[in-house]
């Protein structure tokens, strides 16, 4: 395993997700410890840990919590964002399937810190086993008296509801998520007001990614100082990386921040499938810009190393792409996805995604015109920062990222009406 582990610390067995097994690993002892602290001290500890959000934007969790000042008598909500929809990402799924009680305990601690008495886990509808596991864990916790009534002799009690989404990419956007919980079409909302001011049911709401929340228990257990010893000073802790694509050993890996990227791919993941060469890698979900083999060579897996390279670790959904892959078709898949998932609320994304999808379809059909490349740039640019949520930007980044690096393939395709890489990938090995 690449570096030290904070979450994947136990052997996965058919029963390792149960309350019994979790308690045997020391589960819910941290909650007891947290309840003896003042809520503000819990927040202080998390802020001191420097934990960065794992949903994609790497926003400091402590700063997000700090915005929400618990007001006595006011209702506050906490939502765990388990709508893991970013293509290439399946790390939260591991937590939900194998360590659901870690999430429940973390949510109890977080709720205690933020004055929340009613929390939600918003899980994507396509998740089946993860849903059964987290719902099972919540049921177990209710039966054990950890949820629904005051715990460990304190006055703190939490209700936790697992809410299944109906399947949409924008449900993973924080404000779309809460709109979905409210029972409406998950249209993201304009800011201001921020969700920590007016969120779910118009009440202050904190929404954190499952992995971000799962780290809370560890932070409180070992203390911020110990936590900061893992990872790098600017990216403390670990990241769950879900790697897929043309890689020998795809799966979820817990990577300590600062681990060399090339080493991770070549040694931990067993190198490329059938010994193919790495063409490029999508670092963290398809909304981040692709990086070529040469670009990742000097990088380590940490925000301060990847961000200056013009990309980001995002949600940790890494996709390895082998030499011989047609990047025009790669972009086609991407844009089909964005077109399909655009909610249709605001103009640039609603029209732009469909437009880009039409252009790329036309190029792949051999009917591209030279202006198409500039048009794709222009549409991406017109979506940058103009939409209500980040989806328009994300699609633009991904498109620009691929166009910048593989423009020759697009020009070749348009000129010759066929791909530069027509062969089957399997034959390349």
């Amino acid at each position, binding site marked *: 395993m690449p570096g030290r582990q904070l979450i994947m610390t136990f052997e996965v067995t058919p029963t390792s997700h149960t309350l019994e097994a979790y308690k045997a690993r020391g589960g819910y002892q941290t909650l007891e410890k947290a309840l003896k602290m003042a809520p503000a001290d819990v927040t202080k500890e998390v802020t001191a840990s420097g934990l960065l959000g794992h949903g994609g934007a790497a926003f400091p969790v402590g700063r997000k919590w700090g915005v929400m000042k618990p007001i006595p008598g006011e209702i506050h909500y906490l939502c765990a964002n388990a709508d893991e929809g970013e293509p290439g990402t399946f790390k939260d799924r591991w937590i939900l399937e194998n360590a659901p009680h870690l999430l429940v305990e973390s949510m109890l601690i977080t709720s205690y810190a933020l004055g929340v008495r009613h929390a939600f886990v918003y899980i994507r509808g396509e998740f089946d086993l993860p849903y059964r596991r987290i719902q099972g864990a919540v049921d177990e916790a209710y039966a054990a008296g950890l949820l629904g009534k005051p715990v460990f002799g304190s006055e703190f009690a939490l209700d936790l509801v697992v809410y299944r989404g109906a399947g949409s990419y924008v449900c993973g956007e924080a404000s779309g998520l809460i709109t979905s919980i409210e029972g409406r079409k998950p249209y993201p909302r304009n800011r201001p007001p921020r969700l920590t001011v007016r969120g779910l049911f118009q009440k202050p709401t904190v929404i954190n990614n499952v992995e971000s929340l799962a780290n809370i228990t560890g932070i409180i257990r070992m203390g911020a100082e110990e936590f900061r010893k893992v990872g790098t000073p600017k990216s403390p802790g670990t990241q769950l990386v879900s790697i897929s694509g043309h890689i020998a050993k795809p799966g979820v890996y817990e990577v300590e921040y600062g681990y060399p990227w090339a080493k991770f791919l070549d040694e931990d993941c067993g190198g490329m499938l059938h010994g193919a060469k790495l063409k490029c890698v999508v670092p963290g979900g398809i909304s981040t810009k692709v990086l070529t083999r040469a670009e990742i060579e000097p990088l380590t897996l940490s925000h301060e190393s990847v961000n200056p390279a013009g990309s980001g670790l995002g949600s940790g959904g890494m996709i390895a792409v082998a030499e011989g892959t047609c990047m025009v078709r790669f972009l086609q898949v991407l844009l089909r996805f964005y077109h399909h998932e655009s909610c*249709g609320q*605001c*103009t640039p994304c609603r*029209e732009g995604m469909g437009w880009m999808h039409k252009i790329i379809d036309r190029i792949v059909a051999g009917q591209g015109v030279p202006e198409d490349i500039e048009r794709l740039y222009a549409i991406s640019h*017109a979506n940058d920062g*103009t939409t209500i949520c980040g989806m328009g930007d994300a699609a633009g980044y991904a498109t620009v990222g691929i166009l910048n690096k593989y423009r020759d393939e697009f020009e070749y395709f348009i000129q010759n009406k066929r791909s530069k890489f027509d062969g089957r990938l399997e034959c390349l090995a």
Partner: protein
Amino acid sequence: MPRLTIDGREIEAKAGQTVMEAATEHGIFIPYFCWHPKLSVPGNCRICVVGVAEKDGGEWVEIACNMPVSEGMVVFTNSEKVRARRKATMQFITLNHPVDCGICDKAGECTLQDYHYEYNGERSVSVDAKVHATKHYALSNRIVLDNERCIQCTRCVRFTREISKSNGLGLVNRADHSLVRAAEDGSFANDAYSDNVIDICPVGALLSRSFLHKARVWYLEPTASVCPGCSRGCTVNLWHRRPEWRLKAPGMQAANASVDRVTPLENPAVNGPWICNKGRDLPKLLGRARAEVAMLKGKPADLPGAIAQARSLVAAARRPVAIVSSWGSNEELAAFKAAFGTRLEAFVKADHLPEPGEVVEDSLLIRADKNPNTAGATALFGDRAPAIPKDADLVLVWGEGLDFGLIPPAAKIVYLNAWLQPENGHADVFIPTSIQTERDGHYTNFAGVTSAFSKCFAKPAGVADAETLFPALAAAGGGAP
């Protein structure tokens, strides 16, 4: 009171306002599609972008409709960045728009058309096929939807949620396949205010079935009027053909003197920017068959003869009673009072009662009293219910809606009415009168607010104006009205 600068003009905004509200209030124009002063802010059209100066000299571009004002803010509505952003947004909005202005009822008063000339003005840069969607989709039996023209601003959806409260509309599907659709429970068809979505639609997506392909709007002109449908007295615009565009073909004369459509005339004191569907159907109410010939005991007569006969009946009566119309204008009611004084015992009647199936009353606009000027009439003549004494020997009935069975058989009847109705022939003297669209006047609504209506058309020959008729009926010497 935050002070901010918009395009170099310093204005004082109210705390809590958005830049859009502050600018609009001070007469500074920022374009918008989805924003509406009476509806919530969805911020989805993205055309209202403005630039805000940053401390480092840069410019930050955001939508104005959701931007709270702050002290010392410097806003540009027409900077280079803003213009580029607007142009890109206009390209997106028109990308899948069919641009079928030639057959679109909205052409001429379409926000999209105006903004295209103002902020883009260029040919489409797309070479791809447009997204096709349903055309001429029946959203209800009153409203036709063209989904290809729709720009998904959601004004109509928000109207049914926030104003009419029917929740009758929603959006289905995602991305550029989104469609406005009515709820399956028929709540939109039963929405008594549904036609307002036609006005607030910034493009030609929502169309009135009754006005569909009736006229190009530039052939029409609006005349300010008051809806007589109930005692709310909503101010409306009656749209009819401009004199210079009158149709000259044989058989088309009726079209020149008909109200083609009714739209609200915004009036914060009475109806705001809305009216109900009954108001939209005024052409039906005002277009009923007219009585245009005076009658004596059911036999056609000329107007001066009928007036002379009526005058002598009034002069000879010992116990004359009058039933006054609650559809009369304040001027006519005053003329009646001035002409007859206390010579006639006057009662005010309700000309119209709620029809079966009609919304009787609600909390938005519709009032249970279906007459426009009950307040004006009762102010002059009291609010006693019509009770005709047994010994009455003359009853002057003004306006429709009175059961003639209530009149003692011996009493003579002088009847003034605008419509062709069976009662007309039963009166001893029948005099046809003009209707609201043929004269100027005022109505006073239930809350005491007086609104004016203006003449749209000339009255037919052989029809009298009540305002001049009453002095003629009362005058000893007589005289033509």
